[in-house]
């Protein structure tokens, strides 16, 4: 009986008692190992080293000596912040319990070109409607729609309502200034109401190997016409440097339509799709893991230029006028 028991039990217990040794050892939690983990993950998976001409090896040579075993976590965080800043990418963040690194120079170094308070007081007024995430009103004989975040979802019925409401207007102003992005699915949901034919609007390339230029074949993205209301009259799409990520892609999709004019400043960019990862000390970080090109091969990571550049005029601001909205109104009423 005893022999049977041993014969049955012992081999199995030997196997699972060494389970921990079968697993790859977890990296140690010290500043050097955390640095190595962060640097090497980005080295294998970050999508814009080649496009941005970044020599990641030389970046390592600069920052690796700044990391030592005795440094505090805030000192380590600062080194990581500086290193990640060299990527100049708004989709790159490191999240610790006490702070978050970010790169916001893509709009902080440029004119604001947007004043929501001015829009609310002098354009939306009291009578505007809030249709889902869309704040909208008549501006004379033109429909004005402000969409502040692709993080705020909507349904077809919201868009159908808006397009039917303004069907007699001379045109539509869609204002996505300061829209920092959100759900990529909503790009198609909105743009699909402005075309009657399917069209390709972007090509995604995903990093698929450790080499900096190792990408998949293009994953072509299409806009298919929506089932509901459609808009074929002129549209002026208002942009500024804070149009980022999903908004940047929405501008790319809309800009390819003949009846759409993009007006304002270049978008902020953010063409890569960010993914998350984790360091041995528990900090998480995200970074761009793909690149997005227009159908003709234009990389939108650093923004999309408008059809017509226009900055807010200081005098207009003093007179409580939004230069860009005023110009759009003139365009739609054939004055420009």
């Amino acid at each position: 009986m005893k022999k049977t028991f041993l014969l049955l039990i012992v081999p199995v217990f030997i196997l699972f008692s060494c389970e921990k040794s079968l697993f790859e050892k977890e990296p140690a939690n010290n500043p050097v190992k955390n640095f190595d983990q962060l640097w090497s993950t980005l080295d294998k998976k970050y999508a814009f080293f080649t496009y941005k001409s970044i020599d990641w090896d030389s970046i390592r040579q600069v920052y690796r000596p700044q990391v030592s075993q005795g440094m505090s976590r805030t000192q380590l965080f600062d080194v990581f912040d500086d290193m990640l800043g060299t990527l100049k990418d708004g989709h790159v963040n490191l999240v610790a319990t006490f702070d978050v690194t970010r790169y916001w120079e893509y709009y902080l170094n440029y004119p604001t070109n947007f004043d929501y308070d001015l829009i609310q007081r002098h354009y939306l007024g009291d009578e505007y409607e809030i249709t889902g995430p869309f704040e909208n009103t008549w501006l004379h004989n033109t429909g004005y729609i402000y969409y502040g975040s692709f993080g705020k979802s909507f349904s077809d019925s919201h868009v159908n309502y808006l397009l039917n409401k303004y069907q007699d207007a001379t045109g539509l102003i869609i204002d996505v200034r300061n829209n920092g992005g959100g759900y990529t699915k909503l790009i198609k949901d909105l743009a699909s109401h402005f075309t009657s034919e399917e069209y390709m609007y972007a090509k995604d390339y995903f990093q698929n190997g450790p080499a900096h230029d190792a990408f998949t074949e293009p994953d072509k993205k299409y806009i298919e016409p929506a089932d509901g209301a459609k808009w074929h009259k002129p549209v002026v799409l208002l942009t500024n440097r804070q149009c980022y990520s999903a908004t940047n892609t929405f501008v790319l999709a809309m800009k390819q339509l003949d009846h759409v004019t993009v007006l304002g400043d270049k978008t902020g960019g953010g063409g890569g799709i960010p993914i998350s990862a984790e360091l041995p000390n528990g900090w998480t970080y995200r970074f761009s893991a793909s690149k997005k090109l227009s159908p003709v091969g234009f990389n939108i990571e650093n923004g999309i230029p408008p059809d017509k550049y226009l900055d807010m005029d200081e005098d207009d601001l003093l007179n409580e006028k939004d230069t860009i909205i005023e110009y759009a109104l003139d365009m739609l009423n054939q004055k420009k």
Partner: protein
Amino acid sequence: MKKAGIIAILCFFIVPAHTQSIDHYLTFAPQWVYVSNKDDLMSPMTYRGHHGALRTGYKRINKQGVVNEVYGAFALGSIKSDRYPDFDSRAISTFGEITYRHLQPVTDTLSGYPVNLKIGANWHNQVYAKDNLRFTNNAFLLDINSSIGLAARLAKDFTLFERKFGATADLSFALLNFIERPSYTRSTTELEISMNENLFVALANSESFETVDDYQQIMTDLNLVYYLKNGNALRLRYGWLFAHHRNVSEMYEASHAVSFSTLFKL
């Protein structure tokens, strides 16, 4: 409800089994599983956690002692890295698996000792999904595996306190594995940006066959069976699984499962 439960348990003890030359059993069991998972696509850290599961199956033994059995289980729980209490790095973890095993008797004695040895094949199929609550676009990870390998079983019946018991120990190694594991950045971003269109394309693009160079899997089972007088049985099972994928990105997984099941003889 409570009465119905008691009656169901009593029925199990009083339903007489049919006398057949081939024995058929249906099993059903609640199961506890402790999962360890170290997936390079998710973290350099090992995530661990408890799961609740249901396990059911069918077992057939003929006169010659040939065993055919199939088991299915579905488990749901969460796993986390317990290294840093400051961070709730938790992932929802769920898996479903179906295992088919065919065993042929080889000998009734081993080194002169009366123990049944059976050998055969083990076909293990698993779908494993993780959703990391701290991540965004790549939060969802999905792996589909179908592996086939060799299996061996040692079995011994014995009497204790005038009751009939049986004990078995199973060991199997995978030789070939078919895997769909969307990997690198494509996996999760693709799922995120194309939830409505090409999840299956992403899976199909990631499929490959792995041999023991890229995939090592060991499954063990320890079973203690208590035979009831009506032919039915109760079974206490401990199962351990270890698997290591090296293809594209490394993943280690291990699970410890304990179940207490009923074996209804048909």
